[in-house]
């Protein structure tokens, strides 16, 4: 099956600093792909490249980029898809709604622009969309200003706006950061449900491995501007091939089970830092000289892929 979105060799540079250094990933039809990594790994930059929402100082290049069979390399293609074929759920819901317009106006304006609806038709559809994100009193919310709504409610509205163009893919960038735990759980459920109901696929950017385990079918683990490990959620959590992904999971699970947290020594490199051939090598417990000198090869075991000279291919954890 051809993937819905395929990205290969995505590179982004901002003022000479490499931000993304060859990102490879694909989103399949009907799945939710989790993109995880720490601050500065390039998660949001990857999403913004696909949506052509990068700052003007950035230069972007893809080796391959296709969406639903279309060549997505020309920026114009990506601009046209934004909102229509790809919906976007932002990180700070209240901050990304316009504070001086009613929520309903913002939603129906989006519908009129994206789907060419008339005023009355747009209002009806807007109310339907608010209902589809489980808002029980859509008329009140329609008339409200963003400051009159709670954070969870604003995020529902943002999800409704992302659905307005009947997208095939919904990209959500840390959609639950800053929301309370009980609201976060509701929001993740909602996001998962609407993606299925609208026959779309999802890309969920997060740093929270609990969130990924909860809703994602597959995971891409990013480090220093690259996807280092890609596989099904079950496989990555059971036996990630890449030492970084493996340790990230074991930190999360050790904390979760009440054990002593494991640590990864050192810190994430900043853009512009001099990197070894494998950027993780200086922090890696399996690193040898080849990791510093030669590009890590692609390892593919049972559909799980990793870029690593010394991938963890045995079941036993070496920690």
């Amino acid at each position: 099956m051809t993937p819905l979105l395929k990205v290969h060799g995505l590179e982004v540079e901002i003022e000479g600093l490499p931000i993304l250094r060859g990102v490879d990933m694909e989103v399949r039809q009907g799945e939710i792909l989790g993109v995880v990594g720490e601050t500065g790994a390039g998660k949001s930059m990857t999403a913004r490249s696909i949506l052509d929402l990068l700052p003007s100082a950035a230069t972007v290049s893809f080796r391959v980029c296709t969406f639903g069979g279309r060549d997505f390399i020309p920026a114009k293609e990506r601009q046209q898809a934004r909102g229509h074929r790809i919906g976007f759920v932002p990180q700070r819901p209240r901050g990304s709604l316009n504070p001086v317009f009613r929520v309903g106006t913002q939603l129906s304006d989006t519908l009129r622009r994206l789907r060419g609806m008339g005023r009355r038709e747009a209002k009806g559809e807007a109310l339907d969309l608010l209902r589809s994100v489980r808002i029980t009193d859509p008329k009140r919310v329609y008339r409200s200003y963003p400051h009159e709504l709670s954070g969870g409610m604003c995020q529902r509205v943002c999800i409704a706006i992302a659905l307005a163009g009947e997208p095939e893919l919904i990209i959500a960038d840390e959609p639950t950061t800053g929301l309370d735990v009980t609201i976060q759980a509701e929001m993740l459920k909602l996001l998962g449900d609407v993606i299925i109901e609208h026959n779309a696929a999802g890309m969920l950017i997060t740093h929270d491995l609990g969130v990924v385990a909860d809703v994602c079918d597959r995971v891409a683990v990013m480090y220093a501007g690259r996807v280092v490990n890609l596989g099904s959620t079950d496989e990555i959590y059971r036996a990630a091939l890449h030492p970084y992904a493996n340790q990230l999971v074991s930190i999360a699970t050790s904390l979760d089970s009440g054990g002593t947290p494991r640590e990864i020594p050192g810190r994430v490199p900043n853009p512009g830092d001099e990197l070894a051939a494998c950027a993780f090598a200086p922090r890696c417990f399996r690193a040898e000289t080849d990791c510093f000198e030669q590009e890590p090869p692609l390892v593919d075991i049972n559909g799980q892929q990793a870029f690593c000279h010394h991938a963890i291919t045995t079941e036993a954890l070496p920690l």
Partner: protein
Amino acid sequence: MNSATDTLALQNLTKIFKIKTGAFRHADLKAVDEVNISIAPGRTLAVVGESGSGKTTLARLILRLIEPTGGTVLLENTDITALQGTALEARRGRMQIVFQDPYDSLSPWQTVGRTVAEPLILHQNLSMQQASEPVARMLERVGLSPEHAKRYPHELSGGQAQRVGIARSMITNPALVVLDEPTSSLDMSVQSQILLLLQSLQEEMNISYLFISHDLTVVRYIAHDLAVMYLGKVVESGPASQVFASPRHPYTEALLKAAPRPDPSYKTDHVYLVGEQPTALDRAAGCPLYGRCPIAEDVCADTPQQLVEIEARHRVACWKRT
């Protein structure tokens, strides 16, 4: 329940904010409502709750950054709510805080050395020169090098900046450190480094921690005791292991069920509570959770339940579960 050896004991601590609701009208917002908790030396009490639960107000009351409406705060058996002027200043070195955002809580104009020395200069009347040696020692203790004393906050990573915040809070050898979400803005690999550091400092210096967090994973690891707050009230408290193993209050249960866990086979319970948290202004007269609680009955609406001990030190305020 309080013993004379406790580092910190709160007795009916209450803070009511007057909220303007009209030209001549005010409403009372009970941000912290008759809270009784205590922490023994070398122990960690985690205060857990969502936004609006009053955990930050509680921290500010304990440090006496704001004045309580009622109740007392006993720090090493001294009621600090009654202290004024120099007597209060003399106690301040015994209680310190580490903030959530490591960068925001460091002055961008001051070197790391100056920042860490500040409490010594302020509370122990040392000169910058006299402070430099303990500062260097403290920086090494938190995993930085004495060289870092010359740096400015913008030259540090998030983890390093938080280490500076910790060094500043520990340098006066305090009895109590309030940790206000100290790891929530850090990346996971760094988060565990900071948790390990906090734990070893506690063992070494016998400090008591009041650990404020909404992250149950972190709390599970670091806390000895737990107090769950909802709209200003402690609804459940007890030994952390016991509360995690058998939560009794429906709100505690909801928090535990809603927290996503890094295990694909674990099924998160997404909607256990009904609706959204109201503000402390529109809270029911009885149980604060009334209206969202799946097991509530009529009695919950207007009769508040007190904390009742159900097992050793495990207390819960719920009509249905006591």
